[in-house]
């Protein structure tokens, strides 16, 4: 399975000069599709095993096994990893397909597919990894692939800056993961995942106790890794910036797959988290905070992709919250449905952006309903699913998470409430997006498109900096103005739309439990996995979800369609709050002031002051100075006059004589 994307990467990379036309795209898509088929084959063969034997480990070769460290290249196939690879390869195939059209004509077409295949390879490595070491490798390679794709149009300084930001924050996450691994390894003496879990249940951290210090530290550090990758507060700032990458990339990496790795990680490590409840609480609280904060920011942003990005953060907040409180199946279920509808939303957004000639600001959009009917349909489906309106997929998965939270009671009720507030916000910002982009007066571009031709900016500029785009490398804009015309795009979007509508049906409360049952072998030891649903709560949740979602849509309709003045009035009235939202709760500024500035200042201090004053002047200069002063002294004594020499001789003898006389 790993071989297909690898081959795709290599062919695209080495053939960048020779591959004709769009063949690199088809090769890349084909490779991923084959991987998808392989995933299905794995699924089938796994189902052939009895539920107790559905955790298969195969070691390929010794990687860095020495001195008690057992780092091997080993792969773990179990329901969880199969679930993940199905999503990853499935969605990836569609997005590759979409990209063939979207990226057509870009200068870096081959490069794009090489990177994209590389990303899928890394992601598969991540989810299939059978030990911590390989997990970290996959984890970081995913980050690297993400970096490459964010910085894809590397002549834009905004893109390179976003890329390095994403990379560095991901490295922070890697560090968390590595350190967490150390804390765990310290007690279990193995890097192998299953052996670690085995050792943990056999009391590597103390029998019957929960909350061992090292375990909690380890789990919290794992969470740091998860937060960085899944863009949870406060390590989320890279995700909105990552929208500098091509839109299909945002769709694949920053919505459907990579950012959900944190969710996967927590689910994968559940035997550890089960014993570290305080770490679980941290995860749940951060998830809840993220879903709320991201929702509020999403309300105020004007860049269409960034709104969706904040929405992604928010949704992943649900998932993190879910897996942190033990709602593993629900969290992963939401992960799956989210993959469908969020990828769909991004693709639809890409279609609009194409139509706008690269412009992403909501302020300048409007009235695309007639110009892009297909996109409009997709967007509405995605939006409804996102808002959790029955019977769309998001409805079931989100409610299931909140149901578990509500069931557990205690302070988890707070999570329950936050979840529904978040749901309201979700509906609100989603439909703000839809209403502003598709309703209202059609803008010039929309009218042009209705007339049958695409808009092209004469001198494309980077909206963020205003600098002229460098066309050597490609850039978002005229190259990508296929809108929704191309067949591959339509196919990809249709498939995802079907998923967004219907994916929820696999797990309808009281009716079927496909996901639950499938994942059960992985989570046999999870205490909260099977809960006895209280009917009242179930129906309350479903009703509440519907009502809240519809209320959000209604409010959005009222504000942005019926009475646009309300928005303006609210903005003036709640200026501080609005400012807070627009400025993304000042997280960037905070990180800048707390981390980046001090470090840079320290670096400058080191090179300008310390290096010069201490190293050069004090250590080097001091030593040579002393020696030189000695040299001068010696020379000063060396006057050239015999009388002084004789005097020195006499003095010397006197000195030596004095010494000897002291002895007597």
């Amino acid at each position, binding site marked *: 399975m790993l071989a297909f994307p690898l081959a795709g990467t290599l062919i695209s*990379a080495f053939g*960048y000069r020779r591959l004709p036309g769009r063949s690199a795209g088809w090769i890349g898509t084909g490779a991923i599709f084959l991987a998808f088929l392989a995933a299905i084959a794995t699924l089938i063969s796994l189902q052939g095993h009895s539920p107790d034997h559905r955790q298969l480990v195969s070691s390929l*070769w*010794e*990687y*860095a*096994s*020495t*001195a*008690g*460290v057992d*780092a091997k290249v080993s792969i773990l196939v179990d329901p969880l990893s199969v679930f993940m690879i199905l999503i990853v390869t499935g969605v990836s195939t569609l997005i590759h397909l979409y990209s063939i059209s979207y990226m057509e004509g870009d*200068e870096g077409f081959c*490069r794009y597919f090489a990177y994209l295949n590389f990303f899928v390879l890394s992601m598969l490595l991540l989810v299939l990894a059978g030990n911590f*070491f390989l997990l*970290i*490798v996959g*984890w*970081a*390679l995913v980050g*690297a692939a993400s*970096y490459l794709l964010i*910085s894809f149009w*590397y*002549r834009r*300084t905004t893109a*390179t800056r976003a*890329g*390095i930001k994403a*990379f*560095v924050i991901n*490295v*922070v996450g*890697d*560090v968390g993961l*590595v*350190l967490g691994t*150390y804390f765990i*390894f*310290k007690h279990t003496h193995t890097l192998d995942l299953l052996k670690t879990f085995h050792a943990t249940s056999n009391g590597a951290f103390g029998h019957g106790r929960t909350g061992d210090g090292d375990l909690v530290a380890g789990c919290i550090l794992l969470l740091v890794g998860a937060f960085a990758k899944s863009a949870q507060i406060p390590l989320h700032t890279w995700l909105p910036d990552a929208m500098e990458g091509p839109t299909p990339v945002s769709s694949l990496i920053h919505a459907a797959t990579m950012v959900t790795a944190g969710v996967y990680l927590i689910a994968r490590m559940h035997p550890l988290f089960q014993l570290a409840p305080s770490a679980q609480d941290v995860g749940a609280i951060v998830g809840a905070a993220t879903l709320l904060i991201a929702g509020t920011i999403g309300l105020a942003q004007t860049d269409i992709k960034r709104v969706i990005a904040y929405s992604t953060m928010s949704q992943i907040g649900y998932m993190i919250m879910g897996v942190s409180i033990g709602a593993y199946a629900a969290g992963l279920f939401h992960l799956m449905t989210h993959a469908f509808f969020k990828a769909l939303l991004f693709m639809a957004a890409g279609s609009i952006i194409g139509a706008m000639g690269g412009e992403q600001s909501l302020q300048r959009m409007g009235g695309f309903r007639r110009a892009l009917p297909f996109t409009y349909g997709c967007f509405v489906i995605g939006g409804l699913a996102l808002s959790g309106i029955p019977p769309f997929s998001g409805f079931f998965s989100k409610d299931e998470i909140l149901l578990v939270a509500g069931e557990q009671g205690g302070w988890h009720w707070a999570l329950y409430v936050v979840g529904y507030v978040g749901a309201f916000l979700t509906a609100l910002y989603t439909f703000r997006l839809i209403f502003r982009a598709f309703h209202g007066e059609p803008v010039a571009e929309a009218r042009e498109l209705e007339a049958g031709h695409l808009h092209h900016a004469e001198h494309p500029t980077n909206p963020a900096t205003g600098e002229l785009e*460098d066309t*050597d*490398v490609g850039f978002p804009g005229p190259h990508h103005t296929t809108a929704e015309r191309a067949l591959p795009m339509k196919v990809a979007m249709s498939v995802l739309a079907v998923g967004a509508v219907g994916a929820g049906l696999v797990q309808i409360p009281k009716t079927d439990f496909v996901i639950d049952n499938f994942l059960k072998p992985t989570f046999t030891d999870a205490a909260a996995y099977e809960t006895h649903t209280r009917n009242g709560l179930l129906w309350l949740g479903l009703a509440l979800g519907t009502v809240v979602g519809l209320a959000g849509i209604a409010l959005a309709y009222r504000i942005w369609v019926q009475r646009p003045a309300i928005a303006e009035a609210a903005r003036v009235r709640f200026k501080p709050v609005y400012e807070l939202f627009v400025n993304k709760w000042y997280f960037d500024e905070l990180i800048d002031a707390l981390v980046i500035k001090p*470090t*840079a200042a*320290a*670096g*400058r201090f*080191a*090179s300008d002051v*310390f*290096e010069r004053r*201490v*190293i*050069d002047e004090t*250590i*080097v200069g001091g030593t040579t100075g002393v020696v030189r002063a000695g040299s001068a002294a010696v020379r000063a004594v060396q006057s050239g006059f015999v009388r002084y020499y004789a005097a020195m001789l006499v003095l010397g003898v006197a000195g030596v004589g004095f010494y000897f006389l002291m002895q007597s």
Partner: protein
Amino acid sequence: MPPLSILLWLPAACGLLGALLPAGAARIPTPATAPGGKVRRPSSPAGIVALLGSLAALGLAIAYIADYKAGGGPQHVTDTMWISSLGIHYKLAVTGLNVILLGMTTLLFAAAILASNVRAGGPPERPRLFYFQLLLAESAVIGAFLAQDLILFVAFFDLMLIPFYFLIGTWGRDPEGSTRVRATTKLVIYTLVGSLLMLAGAVATGVLSAQQGGGHVDFAFSALQHMPLSTGSQEWIFLMFAAAFLVKMPAFPLHGWMPDGYRAMPVEVLMVFSGVLSKVGAYGFLAVVLPLFPRAAVHFQTVMLLVALASIIYGSAQAFTQTDARLIAGYSSVAQLGFITLGIFALNSQGAQGALLQMVNHALVVAPLLFIVALLAERAGGSEDIRRMGGIAFRAPVLASVFLIVALATLAMPGSGNFAGEFLILLGVFKAKQAIAIIAFAGVVMASVYALRLFIRAMHNRVGPGVTPREMTVRDGAVLVPIVAVILFFALYPQLALKRSERSVQGAVAQAQVLTTPRHLSARVTDLDQVFNATSQE
């Protein structure tokens, strides 16, 4: 397998042969023109002899790697008395500690010699002397790695600097604000200061252990290990060795020679200097200091870890504020060598294993990095300032890819061999001193900043003023691609190095490790003699 002396002296012999050949320049009257439009000096027979010699050495080293039996002790031992009156042996052996380093050394020297043969300006002036010095340096480095006698080690260690003195002083560059002669003198004095102290320490080791043991003075490692010194002697001697090795690496705050030195060196010389010579210091800690002065190593463990930590933080902080691409590489080396020191002074097998692996990895990345910097400078009008570079990836995709691989390996991207090394190092330190390991991770994050910054500023963003983007030539590729291939190989299979070194590394750290283990835990290995016996078989 041929005796080790052949590997040791082959480069020097080729250098001498090349030096004795008639000058080739006279025979080819019309100089060819380099791609850059500059006049290219014709390649010199001395250069070709040097290349052949270094490739032969590389071949031999690979043969030794293939032949090395993991788990065995020293192999292919050559042992004769050198100065019998002083008990100094001419004793060479391949051990788990040096076998991979030999491969790395010969590879980098071959690459550097190739680089000097193919670079745009043609081979350097006075090629016969140049290659003689370079190959003499190679022999000295190989000698330092192979030596199994303390004085022999010290002698090679000091000797290797002399050719570099000539190489830098004669063929160096005069960057703004410093002259090469001054920089060279500073470098040599700095590094020889430590080396000479080490000489005193080495002699004292032999004499004092003979006095304590009541036997004849014998400087062979195997003999010295049997006659451990008193703790007091170990401590002052340790400091002398540490001074030598830390300067050579260089470690903060003993890196004062580095900025000027790095800027003055011709690139092919810098490749080996930065790649190989710094490792001899680290190797010295592992192969000499830990086995011979275990008590002192334990005594100074915290100090050394703090020095290493300071190097990491300081080097990293410098690397992301510097704008001179060479100095970024230089300070990153300070940081990376800090990691290596950290691993060694974790005083356990994981740390030491990681350190050894990282020595190879760092050499493999820093050499191509520096070569790439030179290529970038060629495209940026000769400037090595990253502010004047930029945007050449599009016209040079292959160079960009190679650079990217190297940059990612430099920042120890998981999946690279460097990560495997760093993982083991930090794991070792984590076991030894948890807090230090956690702080050291700051260096990991910082590495990602400076490595990517270098890559982006050179390759991405807008095309810099005065930059002429163009792809690297096939000749440049011949230098870079083999090294990158080795990087990729180690990314997939670092076990190659680890498997061979495992036993020897355990032997090297065994005594120190026992001393650091809390008493109740060391009940199983209470008998120190057992450990001594085990290590002396290594």
